[in-house]
């Protein structure tokens, strides 16, 4: 699930908010045998449009071609390629970890360190929510694993370009 930085490309695609558009977009990747590593879709500030955020495993020289092909789709309005250095990327993770009474404080301590939140507590497990950079989520996931992850869900990655720092 985790998309390590470097070999991957993040595309932010502004599309018309209507049925079938996601299938058109994902179909272009599928027919070329490219895997979509992460996907997030939601309406943008303008309800006519949605933003699709894609992290794809595409070789550098193919990015330009797939971007052009995406842009040929009638329902695609704008495409921005986001480089990790020039953009802010976040993901949300929820996981349920086995944490009986004796382990609970250790788990809670880790959640606190990462700035996560406990959203549900049961007798033998707790459910934790954490948002942050994808790499931090990977680390957190790794640290939780020894306690026994019962369920885990991560959202696709959302990203926006960094704002200019020049005055």
């Amino acid at each position, binding site marked *: 699930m985790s998309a390590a930085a470097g070999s991957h490309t993040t595309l932010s695609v502004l599309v018309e908010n209507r049925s079938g558009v996601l299938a*058109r977009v994902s179909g272009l990747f599928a027919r070329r045998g490219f895997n979509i590593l992460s996907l997030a879709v939601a309406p943008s500030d303008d309800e*006519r449009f949605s933003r699709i955020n894609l992290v794809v495993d595409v070789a550098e020289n193919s990015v330009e071609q797939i971007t*052009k092909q995406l842009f040929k*789709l009638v329902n695609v309005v704008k495409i921005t390629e986001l480089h990790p250095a020039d953009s802010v990327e976040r993901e949300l993770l929820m996981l349920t970890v086995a944490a009986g009474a004796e382990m609970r404080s250790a788990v809670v301590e880790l959640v606190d360190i990462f700035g996560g939140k406990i959203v549900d507590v049961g007798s033998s497990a707790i459910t934790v929510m954490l948002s942050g950079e994808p790499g931090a989520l990977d680390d957190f996931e790794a640290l939780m694993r020894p306690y026994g992850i019962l369920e885990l869900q991560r959202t696709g990655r959302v990203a926006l370009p960094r704002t200019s720092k020049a005055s």
Partner: protein
Amino acid sequence: MTKMTGAQALIKSLEMEGVEVVFGLPGGCILPAYDPILDSPIRHILVRHEQGAGHMAEGYAHVTGRPGVAMVTSGPAATNLVTPLCDAYMDSVPMVAITGQVSRPVIGTDGFQECDTVGITRSVTKHNELVMDPDEIPLAVRQAFHLATTGRPGPVLLDVPKDVLQAQVDWSWPSDREVTESLPGYRPTVKGHPRMIKEAARLIASAHRPVIYAGGGILKARAADALRELAERTGIPVVTTLMARGAFPDDHPLCLGMPGMHGNYAAITAMQQADLLVALGTRFDDRVTGNVATFAAGAKVVHVDIDPAELGKIRQPDVPIVGDCRQVVAEIVRALATAELPDLSEWRSRISGWQQQFPLHYDPPRPGDPLKPQYVMEVLRDQAPEGTILASGVGQHQMWASQYWRFTEPYTWVNSGGLGTMGFAVPAAIGAKVGRPERTVWAVDGDGCFQMTAQELVTASSERIPIKVAILNNAYLGMVRQWQEMFYEERYSEVYLSPDLPDYVKWAEAMGCVAFKVEDPSDVEPVIAKANSVDDRPVVIDFRTDSREKVFPMVPAGASNDDVVVHPSQKPTERKVVQ
């Protein structure tokens, strides 16, 4: 506002778009749309198989430049349309397809004759749409025609559920502005970048071995005149790809004919030796480039295309220009107005040396030999009335048709280039004849191809569409046979078809055609003359041709264009000319 049914709104919308003819076949879900057809001035041509409707729409579009329209029902009819849609998509043919769909409440329940038409056709159309709101039918139709005909043309499909056709709608015809605003992601660039145009002109003015590489985009952009101006202003020789045959006259001194796998030696070699390729409306198809790494390796490239995705897809251009070919080429000519152009006479004379050394060639038949297919093409060509339109299927006969015909005007060649759809010729010729009824339309077909779509001759007979079909019957899937002979040690696997099964003359007659069989070379001329004189029904000639004939020149798949194989009786290929 006028009240009407969705079906009436659909047909009225087609009328508003100026549609003269619809190729189609009715069925359950599209039934409501067939009722208002009875009261419409639109001519409906009832096909015998939905694939025929699609290829007819393509043939019509190829020769008229207007979008062809096919209308069929849901399920199997829609799937039968997939091949023509893909064909039109590959060759950028403007086409609008309308399919019936099961009623909205039934969609997704595996209803009778239901299939996911928009899902199935998504990757073979420029755009498609499931029309769920009856009031949106006129807008959907306007969008479809706008998308099919602007930018890079292509097929657009509208899938219309039966209850949408039956619903009551308030008729209103959307304005141009509404159409544009309803497509916020669609703004094709037509005007070339001025700096790039200047740069292109600079490269052209400094090249010593330039070649204009003209593709089908010239025809789509109605840019044949602009191309001719550019060639004549600069004296640069022109190759016309399979999709561009007729875009530049074959009898023009600057025309080198077709490049590529079965192109002319001179066209192939001129591109290989060029220092500049001016690529216009073309996509560096593998059938043209051969091995890409060694294709025109010493050439700079100016690439003009309306589709930005074509620029740099196969070959990185030195000067990429996104825009409409007619406008951009005219701009380039303007930019060259005051330029001092180099003398290209040495380059041209080198090319004419290749032309003389390696013209198209076939060995004349020895007594008792079967007909040479190339000879049949030559006689067809020489006897063709002025302005004849030529359609072809896919295979050896297609290559001989392209090689041996003399194209003197645009929009006289109808073929399936990108997809290579066997069976294209007969229905495409019918569509072409409907679009240009005053022209003679010949379909050159192979025996394998003919068997795939021949049933449309019933359509042609019953609708009085007098096309002519020349079957080059070599009793084989000829092109496959050629590859098996050359690359599979003559191990002929599943390519023999038999010359007599079916009996083509009886079959054609049963379909209402006049039919002839020709075996003797001396009969070729008189029978073609007879066929040319029939104008009230389709004609089919079964030419029994030599199955051993192969198409030359040939660049084997994946090989370099430097290694073009000429006809065995021609002298061995002259190796790379020193530059």
